[in-house]
């Protein structure tokens, strides 16, 4: 039982918005594409929204999620739902955990600062499921070579270091 997007009337709605304008409440349901457009048009407001967050790393995941949401003073709020598990951003905030794999796509923007503050990065460089092919193989090999280079320099094995440096450069150009 899926709603149809109220804007394009074609694609299934996955984002639910509740707007409060001048005290009047209205609801709308949008598909992913229309929602993106809607969000861009509200970008300015949202930027302010997220700037109000104040992270302190490692103060516990609940605090991290909690700080994402500062609803007061904002004229609208989203009630976007995850299409697979039906979770809202508020659910994620409450539990400090994602509802399913699709949540990470659905709430990518909201989760980004959290991920960054936990890990200091948002780029996975490790292994990949075999079915997807090993896209990170080059990066992994580079990381290994850089580590070997560091060790060679530390051990003052300069000949070895030069070879490793050349290998790294060649691989980077590939």
């Amino acid at each position, binding site marked *: 039982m899926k709603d149809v997007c109220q804007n394009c009337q074609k694609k299934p709605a996955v984002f639910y918005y509740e707007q409060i304008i001048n005290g009047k409440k209205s609801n709308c349901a949008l598909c992913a594409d229309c929602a993106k457009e809607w969000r861009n048009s509200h970008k300015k407001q949202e930027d302010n929204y997220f700037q109000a967050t104040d992270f302190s790393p490692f103060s516990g995941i609940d605090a991290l999620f909690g700080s994402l949401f500062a609803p007061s003073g904002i004229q609208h709020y989203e009630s976007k739902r995850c299409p697979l598990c039906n979770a809202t951003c508020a659910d994620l905030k409450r539990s400090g*955990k*994602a509802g399913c794999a699709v949540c990470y796509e659905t709430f990518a923007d909201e989760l980004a600062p959290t991920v960054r503050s936990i890990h200091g990065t948002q780029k996975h460089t490790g292994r990949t499921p075999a079915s997807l092919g090993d896209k990170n193989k080059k990066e992994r090999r580079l990381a290994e070579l850089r580590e070997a280079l560091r060790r060679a320099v530390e051990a003052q094995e300069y000949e070895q270091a030069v070879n490793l440096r050349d290998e790294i450069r060649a691989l980077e150009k590939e």
Partner: protein
Amino acid sequence: MFWYEKKAEGKDVCVSTRVRLARNLKDFPFKARLTDEKAAEIVNKLFDIYNDQENYTVTTMQDIGRIDAESLAERHYISRDFAKSTSPRLLVRDDSRDIAIMVGEEDHLRIQCIKNGYALEEAFRATMEEEAFLDSRLDFAFSESLGYLTHCPTNLGTALRISVMMHLPALTAAGRMEALTQQLQKIGVTVRGLYGEGSRADAALYQISNQVTMGITEEETLRKMSKIIGQIADTERAMRTSYDEETSEKLLDRAQRSEGILRTARLVSSSEFLSLYNAARLGCMIGNTSSLTPELLDSLLFAVMPATMELAGYRDTATTLPKEMQRDKNRAVLIQKTIAAYGKGGTKKTRSTPSDKERKSKKTPDEA
């Protein structure tokens, strides 16, 4: 044979090594939003995969008793939460490789390898091998940018946690653990005190684990952790060998008194056991001539836990003693029986304390 009874390396500073990977199935909601019906579906999938495989023991958690589950948690095969949960769960074990897979923990799958002493490389390889076996049979939740998708964002990326349980009595006594903890925190490594940290029963046991799982490869994590563990171990060893004669004498006195209590007491509480364990274990390493070894003390560490003790048959007999007292009495009996059996059937009756290097080069004929 349980993992903590097997032959091990690095026992002078390391109690155990654990490597675990978290994995989730692509098309199923995570634990918090998973119905029991869907959870059972996952359990069945894994049951089918492992049921006809040799070497694996497959246990449906609902089929075992509360004490059995608690004991598994006490011996680090499973987590406390997993033991207590009521939703469909499966435990898959291959004790020949010290592999344990929890199905239905916080993540759909927790693949772990726990080994006695220091065995990072081995535990790492075994865990990766198990993951590859499952990867070829299941679709894991994965994103190119975020890596393996996990219930909690703290595990995203490699979803790899490497932990080593270390016994650091010298660093603890010197009051250096707090500074070390803060220093390691800065480079993404967590130090957690175990069993009565800060209390009088402090056993000087710590769990050292990596915190960061994204932007770092599995192999880099392994290298980083082995380097850090090596540094901590070297510092602890250096402190132990730098004790002057007076300090050594005092520590050995404490160790031998502790051994005396372990061998003869009628009542041993769990907190008393931990402080006896701590003193006796340090004594073994700085030249104790007793027959206690870190291996024996570590196996006792797990054997004297309440549920594990009960499972081994040490339960209340028909006495009028208060429950706690009966348990302490059982603990004392268990300790003394274990020490006696070890002295007779154990491989090493006496133990010198060669350094790590010596131990490697000097293989006795029966070891080779």
